[in-house]
């Protein structure tokens, strides 16, 4: 049998487990970390080890001692690559605020060069706090080996902080760029740790660390973090609760005691991997033609009453499945259903269930089933199946039905397409609470707001949708405030000061304030309109999609946004272009505008690489009129988990941009169905980015085409085929 690309892909994904079953092979031991360090990385207490986490693990460690409060988010990007984003309150350092502490961001990367194999230990190389010179900057090479089944030992060589020789921090540095010339320079010193797994839950750790917890600045400032320099020996104990939690207690030197808490999520471990949705209706096979010739008569097709009845039956059955039958074409031998999946995380599951319902409803002569996915009115892809294959392959390995399936571009307007009655216009509304969090404000790292929101959408025709929302704050401590006063770090303009002087809406460097005054939009006590738009989605040709959105696009901008996307269904490559003409909204977030208008636009290229990586490059003009490019790299798992990182560099200089030098951030998106088992398309999403700056800023238009279209295209469908018979 000729293997289709789909089948090859499926076989490839099943291979890793198959390898495990080959007897006699001695696979390398991946040395999965049992303990997280106070820096939120696999390690001892302050020192790193060469251990890794299971691929894809995403988690957070909060550690607290006299020296610092560190909030860490870590992610095992690849089997060898661990990344960590840290936001720390470093105690004992004074800046212009004179608080006795500073809030500091840092970023770590660690790469495992070798796994442990035979006599050879695992070896990793790492960079700590490597964007700009920071309080924790240092580099290391470390080796870890399992000594006995319960004991692991690590030994390494550290530079910078890890050698007890912290680097001098440039007080004028804007941060954000890597000082490669400092790496692995200066005096190096050895460090080491030993950990002992007392039982399945408790691990004890002892380490030798060089960290002196000092910071010196180029302007002569010198600080001892905490109250005193610690000794060299640290001891810790960590206790695992259930699968995902870890509680730790440790000593730093003789003086200080610390505590930490870790939560880890692994995309491969779901509470209900197959979901808690109700069982699908089984296939209803047709009788043999000889046994029931009448059932096989094509006469029904000439009866004008047949099609409306069948469409009604199918629409009702699909509605129970959380799907909308938008339209349908029907002939004696072929049926095409256009479905809008509002329930299942995997489009393949929606298609599998539709196919089974079709076997239960359609006359026996209909042999070709075409199921076209509609993304809010946009026909995105067509799955063509033979009914006899569905009957023959029900509840077999998914590779078989995948191999018998054809995935093609959806024809926008096929002949004979009849819309389901009473579907449009479609009105939806919701009134409920909302909760907003403000993070990373150095004065108050966690702010919140709570209130009520009403939201409604009115879909006049498939793809033509009016959406609006209105919010009323109830309480919270997110307040309105102006941008920071240039040259006076730590002080912000009051809203009154900022409103009184229009010239403040441009920075002294001449950059219009397009995002740095974003807090002026916060803290309104009267009702606000976060969005009010009319969007039109269309498909001009088989592989081209378009969107036009008009109205109040987001909290701070309103105007027109137009986008086109070229995305063949089985191509890993896509191109897009977007143009926006927008005006800055007034701070009361109602219908008034301010005196700033700009055209932004991008051309974009998207490419789906192997191993679930998606690369995106956008080149164009940003909100402040600056020109440049954004590069985004996202890791996506078959279950829909997505973790990504992006960076934007425009023609604004680092000085014009301000602290951070350029815009960068990390995004997370986790399907709720993964966490709860409930069938839903909802997601928990979050973005951690650098400070709100004016360079590299974009209009936040909803429903950009790429993500909308991709769910039913090649890669996502291949990943999701495991759910076809679910």
């Amino acid at each position, binding site marked *: 049998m000729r293997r289709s690309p789909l089948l090859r892909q*499926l076989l490839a*994904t*099943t291979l890793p*487990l*198959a390898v*495990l*079953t080959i007897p006699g092979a001695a696979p390398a031991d991946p040395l999965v970390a049992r303990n997280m360090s106070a820096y939120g990385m696999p390690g001892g207490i302050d020192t790193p080890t060469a251990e890794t986490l299971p691929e894809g693990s995403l988690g957070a460690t909060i550690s607290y001692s006299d020296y610092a409060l560190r909030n860490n988010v870590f992610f095992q990007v690849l089997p060898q690559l661990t990344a960590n984003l840290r936001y720390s309150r470093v105690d004992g350092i004074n800046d212009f605020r004179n608080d006795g502490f500073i809030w500091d961001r840092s970023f770590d990367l660690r790469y495992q060069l070798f796994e442990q194999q035979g006599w050879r230990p695992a070896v990793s190389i790492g960079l700590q706090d490597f964007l700009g010179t920071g309080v924790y900057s240092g580099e290391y090479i470390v080796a870890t080996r399992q000594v006995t089944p319960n004991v692991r030992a690590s030994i390494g060589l550290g530079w910078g902080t890890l050698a007890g020789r912290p680097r001098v921090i440039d007080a004028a540095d804007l941060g954000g760029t890597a000082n490669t010339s400092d790496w692995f320079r200066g005096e190096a010193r050895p460090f080491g740790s030993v950990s002992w797994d007392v039982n399945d839950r408790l691990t004890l750790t002892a380490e030798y660390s060089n960290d002196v917890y000092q910071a010196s600045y180029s302007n002569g400032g010198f600080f001892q973090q905490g109250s005193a320099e610690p000794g060299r020996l640290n001891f810790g104990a960590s206790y695992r609760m259930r699968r995902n939690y870890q509680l730790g207690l440790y000593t730093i030197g003789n003086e200080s005691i610390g505590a930490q808490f870790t939560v880890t999520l*692994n*995309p*491969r*471990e779901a509470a*209900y*991997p*197959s*979901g*808690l*949705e*109700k*069982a*699908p*209706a*089984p*296939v*209803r*096979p047709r009788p043999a033609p000889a046994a029931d010739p009448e059932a096989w008569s094509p006469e029904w097709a000439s009866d004008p009453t047949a099609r409306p009845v069948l469409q009604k039956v199918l629409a009702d059955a699909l509605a129970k499945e959380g799907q909308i039958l938008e339209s349908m074409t029907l002939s004696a031998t072929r049926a095409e259903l256009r479905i809008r999946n509002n329930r299942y995380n995997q489009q393949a599951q929606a298609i599998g269930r539709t196919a089974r319902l079709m076997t239960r409803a359609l006359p026996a002569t209909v042999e070709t089933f075409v199921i076209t996915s509609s993304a809010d009115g946009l026909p995105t892809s067509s799955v063509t199946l033979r009914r006899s294959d569905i*009957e023959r392959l*029900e*509840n*077999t*390995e*998914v590779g078989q039905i995948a191999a018998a399936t054809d995935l093609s571009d959806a024809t926008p307007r096929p002949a004979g397409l009849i819309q389901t009655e009473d579907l449009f216009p479609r*009105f*939806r*509304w*919701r*009134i*409920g*609470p909302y909760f907003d969090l403000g993070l990373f404000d150095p004065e108050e790292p966690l702010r919140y707001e709570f209130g*009520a929101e009403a939201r409604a959408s009115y879909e006049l025709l498939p793809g033509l949708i009016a959406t609006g929302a209105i919010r009323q704050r*109830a309480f919270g*401590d997110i307040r309105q405030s102006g941008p920071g006063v240039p040259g006076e770090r730590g002080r912000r303009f009051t809203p009154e000061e900022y409103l009184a002087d229009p010239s403040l809406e441009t920075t002294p460097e001449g950059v219009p304030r397009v995002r740095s005054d974003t807090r002026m939009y916060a803290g309104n006590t009267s009702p606000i309109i976060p969005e009010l738009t009319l969007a039109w989605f269309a498909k001009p040709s088989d592989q081209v999609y378009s969107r036009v959105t008009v109205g109040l696009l987001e909290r701070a901008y309103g105007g027109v946004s137009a986008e086109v996307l070229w995305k063949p269904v089985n191509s890993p490559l896509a191109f897009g272009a977007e143009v926006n003409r927008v005006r800055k909204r007034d701070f009361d977030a109602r219908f008034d505008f301010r005196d700033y208008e700009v055209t932004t636009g991008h051309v974009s290229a998207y490419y789906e690489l192997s191993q679930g990586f998606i690369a995106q490059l956008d080149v164009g003009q940003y909100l402040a009129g600056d020109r440049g490019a954004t590069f985004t790299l996202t890791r996506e*798992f*078959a*279950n*829909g*988990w997505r973790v990504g990182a992006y960076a934007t560099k425009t023609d604004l200089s680092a000085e014009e941009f301000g602290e951070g030098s350029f815009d960068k951030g990390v995004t997370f998106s986790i399907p*709720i169905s*993964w966490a*709860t*088992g*409930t069938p*839903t398309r*909802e997601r928990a999403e979050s973005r951690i980015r650098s400070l709100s700056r004016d360079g590299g800023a974009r209009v936040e238009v909803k429903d950009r085409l790429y993500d909308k279209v991709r769910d039913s295209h090649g890669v996502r469908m291949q*990943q*999701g*085929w*495991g*759910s076809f*018979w*679910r």
Partner: protein
Amino acid sequence: MILKPMKALTALALLGALAACGNEGPGVVTRTAQAVLADRVARAQGAPETTAPARSDAERAAEALRVNPGPLIQVGFETLGQTQIMAMVGQNGAMRTYMTPSEEAVILRGGMLVGTRGLGRDLSVAEPGTEALIRAGRAGQGTRIMRYLSGDGLERPLQFACTVAPGPQTGLMTEDCEGHGTRFQNTYALEGGQILASRQWVGPGLGHVTIATLRP
């Protein structure tokens, strides 16, 4: 800010008052929150009195047989400590799908378990290479492949090496399987090549089920 108890209660009451409503039903987060809250409230008030005395499995089976004219099986989920009566809702060749009223399903082929649905940690499909031996009542060895949807969304196979042997009584066959660091035993009661009753392993999540035919 630390909420005082009274304030916390007020906040909670407000949350309740603001609980989302709309023409599409509550979102999944709200539903989950409501379920958790309802559960807490129920626990705080003590377990509710059962309105009717629990009926025995035999009584429920008898009623199901009276109400339902089609094929019926009784399935005991050992790890869940539950027994369910399932009615046939579809047949495709020798493959039969049985469902509970709450739409959880078990798929059997001539009594041999080939899949489950709607149970959270389902068996997607089993390919028992030992089936012919078991039906023929012969001892021998074969490979059994069990496929599961894993947490990351892919269907993954587990492969087991199995040994089939006659059981302690006539008409009983046992199948001992081993692989992936685990082992399990399936037991089948046969008559003329048909599996009338059995105890079969579903998977690492659900453990064993016992299946009895109430009406073939």
